């Protein structure tokens, strides 16, 4: 089960006003075409994990901010 499996079963909301439909389903959901001789493809979960590890490396730490309003 992939991390986004819960999304598969959910009821979708109405698309709403004309020309303002929700974005297409996530990229990369077409049927796989790999052959048996290929190395295992990276999954979308792997890609996401890599992206998150990179972001945590690169994003600055939280720092105190001035109180606002």
């Amino acid at each position, binding site marked *: 089960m992939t991390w986004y499996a819960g999304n598969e079963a959910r009821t979708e909301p109405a698309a709403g006003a004309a020309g303002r439909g929700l974005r297409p389903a996530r990229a990369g959901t077409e049927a796989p075409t790999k052959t048996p001789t290929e190395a295992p493809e990276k999954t979308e979960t792997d890609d996401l994990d890599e992206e998150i590890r990179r972001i945590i490396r690169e994003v600055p730490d939280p720092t105190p*901010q001035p109180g606002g309003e």
Partner: protein
Amino acid sequence: MDDALFGTEIEYGCVGSVQPVRAAVLVKDAIFRGCRHGLIDPPPREWGEAPGNGGFLFNGGRMYLDLGHLEHATAECRTLTDIVAHERAGEAIINEAVRTAGLESQAYFVKNNTDYFGHTFGYHENYCIRQSPYDRELVDGMLPFLVTRQLYTGAGCLLPRGKDTPAAFALSQRAQFVTLDVSHRVRFGGRPIINLRDEPLAGREYRRLHVIVGDVNRSEFTTALKIGATALVAQLLEQGWSPQLALADPVRDLRRIAGTTGGKWTVGTEDDEYIPAIEVQRRYLREAERRFGGRDADTVWTLENWAWALDELERDPARLDGYLDWVTKHEQLKRYAGSDQAWTDPDLIKLDLSYHQIDPSVSLFDVLAKRLRGLYWVEGDAAYTAEMHAPPDTRAHGRGAALRALADAGADTAIPWQDLRTNLENLMWDRRYFFLAYDYVDDWQDVAANESWDVIPYVLDWKAIAVRGRVLEMPDPFATYDEEAQIFGEGLEGIFDEE
């Protein structure tokens, strides 16, 4: 949305190697340098704004400094598409200015409401109404809605509780900072659920509902639903409808709901009953469906998705992953924490913060938005257009046109605004200009009454633009003032050559 007009104010946080206040100043200057996105506003303004503190954008909005934060006030909007597009346009304008100012990899602006160190900064929603915001029935009717609205509008956040102490998770960032139900103030003396500031920035028949309890959202689906539902509830209450519900302790319930992710959300009534928070929302929803169902495209979308979100929250909040901010973030934090059931990993805070980064290179939100539907709600073209163009159906349209004419006439060269503050301090020796040095310019009439056009060559405001005695007044936020703006613009030719 029929008979509705709204706008939002977003205070951005900033992290990185540059001090946050310094970064905000540099980015604000880059936004207006060479009239790139709008025109700086020269006079000192109310709420402690020094000369040159901010300016109006060609898209009808305003960008300025507020208590050390870069703040974006959107143009007045009448559709959900426009308000979402204009919020995103503000992000794009800031990102571009960060690059222009040479602050890439040094300053990262953050669209959230807390710094994890006990400070909060604001996100204010403004709804144009005709009824006084002091009206007791309006306030009483709004309270239960705003206390429970966080179920679908909360941005979610970790609440760090010290080293080796498990962090907690809250649905709403702002809830932890709210201490009063109603107040005229926004900060000192307590932060309220409902703020009674009545500053309509329009003609006398219009008033302003100023909602300061909400979180700023990254999910555009959530922003649209938040604005749409709140606008409908304001209209319900203005029509005299009452939810017939009084909460015993709204602040307690606001915080209690924020601290619960498991779905057992309730509020306590003055009759000592506890009723499900989702049922409170449905009470408003059902009346809005009865009165406004089928009225216009935005209303139809809001009603359908409001009902859908409440149904899904009741079944399993995780089903709203990819639509609601707090759910989407909560799912990612749980996934990252894995077997660390105690949530003590300090990287969890960085992950939380990264969700709110507006720089796509370090934004968890942007990474997820490529995979999950709903997080981005308007097409890229609409947001791109909103960077430079005002909504077509409000007075922001006339304001944008007048600003462009003013820029074309050379307004930015008419005053050395970078040195304006120093110049104004020097003016204290001249009795005529005392009000500029020690007070603020309330509106263009102040400058006219003091015959100070030589010092303040133009004044920009939400309801008027004035240039050396030539005035474009825009008291009706629902009007576009296209014709008036064109005539005003034509009259500006050569106006700064009259030295």
